[in-house]
């Protein structure tokens, strides 16, 4: 069995007496898109930075394709966009990508640069200076920069924080395209709806610990159909949307008058709020 693209094992990070991470386990398989959720200060960015080799762990292991995080081989396999980043404003978009091509030893040349800029819908901005770009454009350029050299693993820390709805859609489609190409993605985000829409797997971190993990469907939990009848509200636990017509028909056949029907399920937001206990950073 192939090693996971990203394997995090009993990861700990202490800053003084403060535990930023207190024993986190996480795996990202090839082609998997994993959403990392948690309140501010939960340890999401710290985990990502340890995977990139930017921060040294206090204990535990992080491996990328079986190589220790921070090693040359591990760094060659990843693309990273930090939550807080800045590129030299005097460079143009194409020059920035060329600089990163040289750093990773990519021989994609002009074709790769144009392809990446097209992917983030900056194809017309190749010659534009970064300092003249909006924050949203810079964030999309940051994603293109992370994709230079066709990395096997993408680590994206709040990649849509500065984007408008159109920009978010572009990034969502881009991530789906990456999944189709077999690229693994670890996505830190506060946008639960976005994570719910595109991620195969979700991990929720709070106070440096992994408190919940699974597919969005697994996490969403049981559903119910609630019917308002003449004799009161009746709840059918476990029933799904497709069960609603039959439930209503049965009630009507039994002589009940039906005034309203509601299909309920716990959203990722409900699960998240329950998992983090309403904590915010």
């Amino acid at each position, binding site marked *: 069995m192939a090693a996971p693209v990203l394997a995090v094992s009993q990861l700990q990070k202490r800053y003084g007496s403060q535990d930023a991470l207190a024993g986190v386990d996480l795996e990202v398989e090839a082609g998997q898109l994993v959403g990392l959720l948690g309140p501010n200060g939960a340890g999401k960015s710290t985990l990502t930075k340890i995977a990139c080799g930017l921060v040294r762990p206090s204990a535990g292991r992080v491996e990328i394709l079986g190589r220790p995080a921070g090693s040359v081989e591990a760094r060659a396999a990843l693309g990273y966009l930090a939550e807080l980043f800045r590129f030299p404003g005097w460079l143009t978009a194409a020059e920035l990508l060329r600089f990163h091509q040289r*750093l990773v030893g990519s021989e994609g040349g002009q074709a790769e640069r144009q392809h990446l800029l097209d992917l983030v819908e900056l194809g017309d901005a190749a010659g534009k200076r970064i300092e003249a770009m909006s924050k949203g454009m810079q964030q999309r350029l940051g994603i293109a920069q992370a994709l230079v050299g066709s990395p096997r693993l993408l680590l994206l820390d709040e990649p849509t924080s500065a984007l408008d709805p159109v920009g978010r859609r572009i990034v969502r489609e881009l991530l789906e395209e990456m999944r189709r190409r077999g690229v693994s993605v670890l996505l830190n985000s506060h946008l639960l709806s976005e994570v719910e829409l595109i991620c195969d797997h979700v991990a929720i971190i709070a106070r440096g610990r992994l408190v919940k993990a699974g597919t969005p469907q697994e996490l969403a939990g049981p559903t119910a159909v609630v019917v308002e009848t003449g004799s009161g509200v009746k709840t059918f636990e476990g029933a799904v949307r497709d069960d609603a017509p039959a439930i209503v028909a049965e009630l009507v056949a039994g002589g009940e008058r039906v005034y309203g029907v509601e299909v309920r399920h716990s959203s990722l937001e409900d699960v998240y709020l329950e998992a983090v206990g309403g904590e915010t950073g």
Partner: protein
Amino acid sequence: MNGTALRSAATVVALSIQEGIRRRVFLAVLVLTLAFLALYGLGAHFAFRDVDEFAAGEPKILDPHAFTGATIFGLAMFATLFLGAVLAVFLTLGVVRGDAESGLLQPIVVRPIGRTTMLLARFAGAALLSAAYVVAVYLASWAITEATGHWSPDHLLGPALGLALGVAIIAALSLLASTVLSVTAQGIVVFMVFGAGLTAGLLAQIGHAINSDSLHTIGRVASWALPFEGLYAAGLHGLISGTSGLTGVVLQLGPFGGSEAAGPELIGWAFLYLIGVLALAAFVFSRRDL
């Protein structure tokens, strides 16, 4: 360092140079340097003319022409070291902590280039540019001195190489400071160290002049603790090392005179010091969370 690391290092050096050109840093440095050289040329012209007129017909117990040449060229050498130090510090300003705090560093160091190569590349860029700069300004000052007063130092190339090594050491110290200090603190600390080194050198000169062993020892210790000062002082000595008689003695005692030559010990120590400072900077950088 393998081929990939060398290519990455060259890429980072090229980016630094490109930034200097795009941001018109080099243009500003060139304009100000030309202004300095013009001012120096004017000063040298009038200094030689007035001294030659003043000393004409007087009995010569001191060679006024050599005295003037060595003094103004020593002043030019001091200005060259100062300008080179400014350039070295500004080319290394915020390289680690400053760039990490602004988010510029992280996208680069997560690439296979790694931290040590990145740091050495930034040093190489700053040191090579600063060293080339001081050698160029030094030689231009010499050409002006020769043209205006027909005076040349006793040793031309040695002091220039000493200045080049001196600014490389300042660039390394500045890089080390950048691994732990914020941009403002880095600039302040490196310039204070630079000033302290030069002050210690002057103390050594005074100690030599008044025959004070204590002051002379302080100056010597400072020269070894901050070898850019020792190299500069040795460079000043090289300008007049062949000047004999009262002129040589008086020049050695002056503010732009050097009492000690750069022996192989000082040069060897300066290289060891440079390597040690860079190794320490790389070690601190490698342990730093970004």
